[in-house]
């Protein structure tokens, strides 16, 4: 990607004349050019837009109540009145998928945001202050990271009980070390920068230097990581729910639905599991593509 960036930068454009201040292309035009140049961004934002619109519009205008049981219409295949069919209780799978997408999307974003905030603040302290504080934090991180993150989240969820809030906490705890480590290493490279020294030479307080000069310049890698993490979180939360230790039925959470439909796949009622499964895939893909794009940009501009 670095190569294409150089190529684009070298193109003689409208701002050829260096003596006049560069006229910035309009935001919309810039966004379009960026989309056409980075397929990751194009596919990622398309998927993300689809998922977000489905989640929001679906919640307002879902054809059925996702929890409404109708025994008379159980296990109907996809058709005109039930686009994705119905499950064994006669609930409309389309409405459930639409609701579930919203639930998983929200949980994914909340987990990533929490992990980002907590992880980057602790990572900042660890990397910038250093010394024994750093040692202690890093040893704790080592311990936490010695468990596979999904297993850790699973054990925490089992211990603290599986409400939505607890599932979020469990997955967040499992993710914090990754953001923390990344922030710390990024801070270590930034802390020696001249502008940090310059701010200190100008008499800035340590907290100011950390918040204003170190963190914003070290935030790139953890932000990319958090983008990717939104996708992983959706996967992990639906995975926990699938195993029965995450969000509980009758919630239309996607993992719950996949689990619920699993026993019907062999008997031919594939739609109960497949549609929520596809929704999970699309949501995770959206964040993966966006994360990859962010990663490319970050590497491209890295010195």
């Amino acid at each position, binding site marked *: 990607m670095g190569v294409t960036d150089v190529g684009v930068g070298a193109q003689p454009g409208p701002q050829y004349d260096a003596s006049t201040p560069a006229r910035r292309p309009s935001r919309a035009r810039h966004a379009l050019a960026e989309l056409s140049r980075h397929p990751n961004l194009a596919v990622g934002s398309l998927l993300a837009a689809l998922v977000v619109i489905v989640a929001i519009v679906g919640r307002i205008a879902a054809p059925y109540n996702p929890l409404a049981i109708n025994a008379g219409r159980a296990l109907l295949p996809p058709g005109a009145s039930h686009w994705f069919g119905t499950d064994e209780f006669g609930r409309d799978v389309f409405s459930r998928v639409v609701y579930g997408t919203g639930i998983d999307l929200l949980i994914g974003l909340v987990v990533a945001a929490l992990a980002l905030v907590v992880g980057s603040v602790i990572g900042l302290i660890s990397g910038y202050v250093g010394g024994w504080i750093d040692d202690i934090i890093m040893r704790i991180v080592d311990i936490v990271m010695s468990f596979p993150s999904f297993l850790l989240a699973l054990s925490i969820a089992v211990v603290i009980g599986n409400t939505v809030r607890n599932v979020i906490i469990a997955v967040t705890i499992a993710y914090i070390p990754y953001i923390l480590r990344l922030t710390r290493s990024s801070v270590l490279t930034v802390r020696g920068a*001249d*502008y940090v020294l*310059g701010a200190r*030479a*100008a*008499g800035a307080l340590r907290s100011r230097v950390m918040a204003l*000069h170190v963190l914003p*310049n070290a935030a790139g890698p953890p932000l990319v990581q958090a983008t990717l993490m939104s996708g992983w979180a959706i996967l992990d939360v639906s995975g926990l729910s699938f195993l029965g230790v995450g969000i509980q039925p009758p919630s239309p959470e996607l993992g719950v639905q996949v689990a619920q439909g699993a026993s019907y796949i062999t008997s031919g009622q594939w739609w109960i599991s497949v549609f929520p499964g596809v929704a999970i895939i699309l949501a995770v893909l959206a964040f993966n593509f966006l994360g990859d794009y962010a990663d490319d940009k970050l590497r491209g501009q890295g010195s």
Partner: protein
Amino acid sequence: MISSAGKGRRLSGLQIEGLRVAIGGREVLRGVDVHVEPGSCVGLVGESGSGKSLTALASLGLLPRVARVTAGRVLLGGKETVTPDRDRTAQVRGSGIAMIFQSPRAALNPVLRVGRQVERVLQRKGVRGDLRRRSVELLAAVGLLQPDKVARQYPHELSGGMCQRVMIAMGIACEPQILVADEPTTALDVTVQADILDLIGDLRSRTGMGVLLISHDLGVVAERCGSISVMRHGKIIEAGATRTVMNSPCHPFTAELVRDVMRSAQTADLPARPSPGGPAEASAREAQG
């Protein structure tokens, strides 16, 4: 600043006395003495790795973690700021002593608008009222045309020379007694170099601050400074009034540097200008202890 240690000797400006700094057991500064009077300009010359920058960083208490002051002290306005067991530089940084760096672009925070960076320094000093206007005034004072436009720009939108002017604006924002300029022009081209040095000289004579000008280029230093200290292997090997050092260098290493300056001045078909005079006599007494 009130002189707390008046022993008949005038203690003002920046005084570095017998400073020794070690990095992991290896001594990198081996007894450095430098004295910068208010209003004077002292040049610190030496090859890379001779300890010039470390001297500067040590006097601001900005040494890297691995380095430690093992002996000697630094005084600012007669007050001890750095000793082997104490570091009081946090209180004087910015308002007592400020520093500008070699690579101006790297010395500005890339994610903050220039104006905000200057405002932050003012805010720290406790300046009240219209910080924005004050920062624009400062940018104008360092010779930036269209200062209000520059204030709204990010460092990457400015040239190296403009960035260095911004750095200087930040350095002088709190009206320090001493400005340490560590190779302020090395990364800039020659014409810009002269402008920046003129600006520093101009600010020095207007505000009465002392300047410690660090450079590997004896020619640059000789033109601007009243006195010169030459560093090598972590020691000051020669110090004195510019005229004396340039005309009759004692140390063979200095002599070699002086010869190089003369030669390049001749090849450039320019008259060698050993010293423009200035407050040379004021700093002459610090020569060689």
